[in-house]
């Protein structure tokens, strides 16, 4: 049985500790939640294999559900389908931008060439000033999910939530 609405609301208030403007539901980490003979079973899928926030997130989900009155909570990790940034909604992307992180552009569709030597760089708009005159400094940033960009418009660095 699908979990009751108050449980969904409780989980919807659990935020990603690294990106505290997105909930675990916005991110698509929570895949399903149901009640089985008094136990609330939550299916979660990891974002990146090594994401250290996942443990905190699982802990926060259990805590939120217990506070909402769930007698017993089981968090179940599932691997299929693999998480993708395509699951982040347009509204959540806008909140990311307002927070200062450029949201993933386009879809994470697999390129035909495995290692493109002449890389077409997508233009990433600066979340601070809106300039399109930006460049990638590194594909790896402060967390696994972000790249480092530099904006020539406002002379500030910013982070880009990269498509996966």
């Amino acid at each position, binding site marked *: 049985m699908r979990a009751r609405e108050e449980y969904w609301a409780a989980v919807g208030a659990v935020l990603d500790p690294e990106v505290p403007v997105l909930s675990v539901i916005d991110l698509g980490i929570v895949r399903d939640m149901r009640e089985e003979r008094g136990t609330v079973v939550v299916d979660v899928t*990891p974002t*990146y*294999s*090594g*994401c*250290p926030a996942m443990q905190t997130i699982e802990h926060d989900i259990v805590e939120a559900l217990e506070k909402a009155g769930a007698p017993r909570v089981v968090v179940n990790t*599932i*691997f*299929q*389908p*693999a*998480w*993708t940034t395509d699951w982040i909604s347009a509204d959540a992307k806008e909140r990311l931008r307002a927070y200062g992180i450029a949201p993933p552009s386009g879809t*994470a569709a697999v390129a035909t060439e*495995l*290692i*493109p*030597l002449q*890389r077409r760089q997508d233009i990433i708009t600066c979340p601070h000033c809106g300039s399109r005159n930006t460049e990638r*400094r*590194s*594909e*790896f*940033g*402060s967390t*696994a999910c972000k790249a*480092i960009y530099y904006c020539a418009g406002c002379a500030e660095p910013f982070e880009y939530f*990269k498509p*996966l």
Partner: protein
Amino acid sequence: MPLSEYLLRLGDDRLILGHRLSEWCGHGPILEEDIALANMALDLVGQANLFLELAGKAEGQGKSADSLAYFREAIEFRNALIVELPRGDFAFTTARQFLVSVFEMLHLEKLQSSAHSDLAGIAAKAFKETRYHARHSADWMLKLGDGTADSHTRVQNAVNELWRFTGELFEVDDVERDLVTEGIATDRSALREPWRSEVTRVLHAATLTVPDDGFMQRGGREGRHTEHLGLLLAEMQIVARSFPGAEW
């Protein structure tokens, strides 16, 4: 048994390579690269955790990923030799990361359609992460190969030295043959040509020479390792062994 053995190989390749990369934390040539190396290490150790957890389940003796990582001896590790070699200079680390990441990208791309559903799901996630590793290390191959005379020499020497360790990546033995037939494992030998063509394309663009195939070192899959693995494990395992069961 073959399944847990295969999963150990997948897990150990990533655990040991991830540890080697983590040794750069705080020592990268520039800040961005320090962060990139640590990020790739994190991805690899995360993937290792998932594969080893499955290996423990397949073995059925209640071993967790942690107990497999921290309480096995060198002869029980199943990683290929290439990942345990000392990190060397930045050119060596980059060249190894490139050669291994291209292999893993091709490998994981196929493994996504494994008949084992958890394995397929983990592979799908790891594939996407590994694409970033392959692209990133290919970028550096271009910069170093087509850079200064010094960077060119160093990265060419690194490729030459690493080449004899690449053959092991494509070996298929009895353990894997049956799993390939069952649609669970990927046939590594079929990846050799696509790997060679990707690697050649990048090396040529980087003005580097592709070494000739000669004698290939092997033995890691059967637990015959270089002396370097023991030293790595001593460092990696000491805390867990000094304080068994500690949590933080």
